[in-house]
């Protein structure tokens, strides 16, 4: 078998990145079929998140019972080489024959001799100190500078400032330019990943620029039983975009929203500030035209 592989340039070894439950099982399966496995994890030990769980859905199996045999198995398998506290930096070559460059962080402890007694952990005088690396300061583009600094200044001393800041930035630009988010992170000391998670959690925030007018088709229950699903489809057909997308001319963004509280007028759609109650499908082309004309008039008036 290996002779064959050698002739077509393939090498009988594999690299598994991540030593969670999935990675461990993959490593074991590969090793069992006779392939040498390198198991890489960036943590000091393998096991991943599952070790922290009590039970797993949907069978309610005990997590430790699932993973403990695999941990032991990997520990004694001669064809699996664990490389912990390491990260993959680059991969070159092609499938079946490649080299990987790893960044192995120092452990300062001899793994062969350590018994895991924990005495050094509790005795270490500097275990809670963090090394801080100076990062390059992020600067705002001139078009954002004034508004964003003003918003930040306004909410600086407030408790829980992040939401109001994001809401106002979103109101100003309709979306979050990446650099602005980085800047907010730098100024507020919230981590970028935290801010990005918030920015993607709420439905009224967007990371992509959105159209000048938002068409909201209400998908509340009252509107739905009165046929707003069909309305949404018709809008999407007429504008040639799906829900959540923006038309090419950046004029309209089509959105399906949850109850806007006009259930008495169901089914309802709004374009910008205009509310269209008891909307019928045949009226849709008309109201789209109307908003376009309004837009044109507005543009002309401003010129």
């Amino acid at each position: 078998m290996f002779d064959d592989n050698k002739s077509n340039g393939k090498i009988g070894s594999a690299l598994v990145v991540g030593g969670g439950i999935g990675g461990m099982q993959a490593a074991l399966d590969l090793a069992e079929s006779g392939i040498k496995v390198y198991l890489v994890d960036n943590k000091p030990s393998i096991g991943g998140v599952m070790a922290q769980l009590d039970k797993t859905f949907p069978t309610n199996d005990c997590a430790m019972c699932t993973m403990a045999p695999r941990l032991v198995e990997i520990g004694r398998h001669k064809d699996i080489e664990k490389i912990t506290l390491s990260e993959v930096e680059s991969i070159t070559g092609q499938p079946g024959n490649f080299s990987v460059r790893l960044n192995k962080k120092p452990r300062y402890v001899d793994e062969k001799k350590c018994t895991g007694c924990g005495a050094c952990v509790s005795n270490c005088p500097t275990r809670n100190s963090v090394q801080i690396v100076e990062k390059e300061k992020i600067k705002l583009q001139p078009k954002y500078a004034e508004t964003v600094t003003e918003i930040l200044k306004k909410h600086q001393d407030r408790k829980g400032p992040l939401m109001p800041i994001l809401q106002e930035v979103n109101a100003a630009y309709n979306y979050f330019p990446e650099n602005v988010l980085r800047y907010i992170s730098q100024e507020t000391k919230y981590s970028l990943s935290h801010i990005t998670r918030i920015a993607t959690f709420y439905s009224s925030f967007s990371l992509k620029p959105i159209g000048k007018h938002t068409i909201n088709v209400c998908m509340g229950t009252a509107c739905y039983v009165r046929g707003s699903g069909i309305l949404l489809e018709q809008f999407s057909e007429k504008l040639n975009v799906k829900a959540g997308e923006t038309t090419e001319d950046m004029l309209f963004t089509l959105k399906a929203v949850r109850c806007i509280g006009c259930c008495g007028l169901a089914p309802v759609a709004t374009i910008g500030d205009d509310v269209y109650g008891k909307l019928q499908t045949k009226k849709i082309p008309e109201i789209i035209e109307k908003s376009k004309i309004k837009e044109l008039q507005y543009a002309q008036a401003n010129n």
Partner: protein
Amino acid sequence: MAEKRRIELMVCTGTGCFAGGAFQIIEELNKELESFGLKDEVSLVATGCNGFCGQGPLMVVLPDNIFYGWLEKKDVHYLVEEHFLKGRPVKRLMFMPPDEKEPFPLLSDIPFFKKQLLVVLRNKGIIDPEKIEDYIARDGYLAIEKVVASMSPKDVREEILKSGLRGRGGAGFLTGKKWEIASQQIKTPKYFIANCDEGDPGAYMDRSVLESDPHSVIEGMCIAGYAIGSNEGFIYVRTEYPLAIKRMRIAIKQAEEYGLLGRNILGSDFDFTIEIREGSGAFVCGEETSLIHSIEGDIPEPRQRPPFPAQTGLWGCPTVINNVETLANVPVIITRGAEWFSKIGTETSKGTKIFSLVGKINNTGLIEVPMGITLKEVVYEIGGGIPKGKKFKAVQTGGPSGGCIPSSMLDSPIDYESLQKAGSMMGSGGMIVMDEDTCVVDVSKFFIQFTNEESCGKCTSCRDGSEALLEVLTRISAGEGREGDIDFLTELGESIKDASMCGLGQTLPNPVLSTLRYFKDEYEAHIKEKKCPALVCRNLIQYYIDPNKCVGCLLCIKSCPTEAITGESKFIHIINQENCHKCGQCLEVCPPKISAIIKVTGSDMENLVQLSEIISCKEWKKNHEYS
């Protein structure tokens, strides 16, 4: 209030009427009153939501109490001249129930208002929500005065506990009890939060309370703050409610100017401030721990309870979160006494509850009824029954967490326990009526889609469980249901309930489980006979032109977006099923007198007469007249 005028016009400017153009009506009214020289005799008040949203834009004429609905700009001139100048009320604009010949002129005669009991909405449609003077004239801020002058925090808590007031947000926890727990905590400061993140689709009571009577919420918050020993309050409002936010801002500013908020309220040593926080469109933020995270600027995911927020809440401090409607009850209880309040309602559920009565019902709008009223009274007496003489099928309460209650249970009273027993819940008070044209599989699918999108993703059971439910429901409604699907839905639903951490996950299978309980036959029809009895699920229905009725008018052909209908003028039109997208536009445009287009499902599809060639309407009639 300003001096009494001969006539007062109460024009509703809640979101529903606002959308219908209430402000244009006001503008026109002002203009017309001016031109008739009636400015000094007739006053005009822009009120909050009147409740009868289905009739909007609307207004009530005081002191006669005459109700006008569906106002249009062009009616205003005539109305001002006839009624306000000549004193002849305009019948044409009054409320006209579908089956009656004579309109109801008086507001108090309209069945929609008759059965209601207004406690929370006591000021709706009577005051201008943007004027604190109006609220004060209606005994507003009397309660907070009584509280700071003559009651200890303990007295207030006991009074609320005695009244039996329960949280109106859904779970129905005793409000007095919650305050008691928070007041026992040693840690300070304590915070108070009013929850107006009303996310349930089809429910808008909280919005309406803020829009029509914001000061009652402020007063309720002050009293609550006093009772638990908190000096800082937040009100969390959905960003989808711009009008409510605007009115709340105005109200807070006015209360501050009057010394009813801020330092040393009414000369006492009690301080209380209120800050508005906006949501940004996440359903899960209505859950209290998740709401706290959202205010803190954290990821708005719920956390495990206990400790309850009343013990460890905002920034780790004791925090009480009450629903807006609960708070609007508080000032009334203080002024009129716990005993009076506890007389309304049933043994376990005291007071009134606001519902938004929407869906397939004649009188859509917001109603406040005493607990214990039956569903039948609400649907048929207040709601005026189902439009177009259709048959009632079910009423859905409690939003995506609730369930459907079938017609067999219409006689059961509305209170926390009875609704729970029926497999639904009180929830925040959405009441969506469904008629025979509503498919339960489709509705369940709709709710699961909602919760699936809104699940924050923290618990696997909710995130992936809703996905699995959705997949099966989608399959069933597409006509690809399999044997065993029903058992699978039940089992999965139960385990999602058991395994999820917060209310969202624990209740998300309810719409499926309750419809399975009462409408199992409909699920079975979808799975076994590939038939949608309500004619909703697209893959299971066909649009068909009845050759006996078609007059060949071309209307449907012109409206069809996919050019699936063929035919010529005066020739019977035929729908080509392969091209048909089942959008239903043809059905909409076919004149009601003719109504040649019908929907068919299941085995009926096979028994249709299929025309093999184009035939003129005349010829068809001739051939079929004698046979």
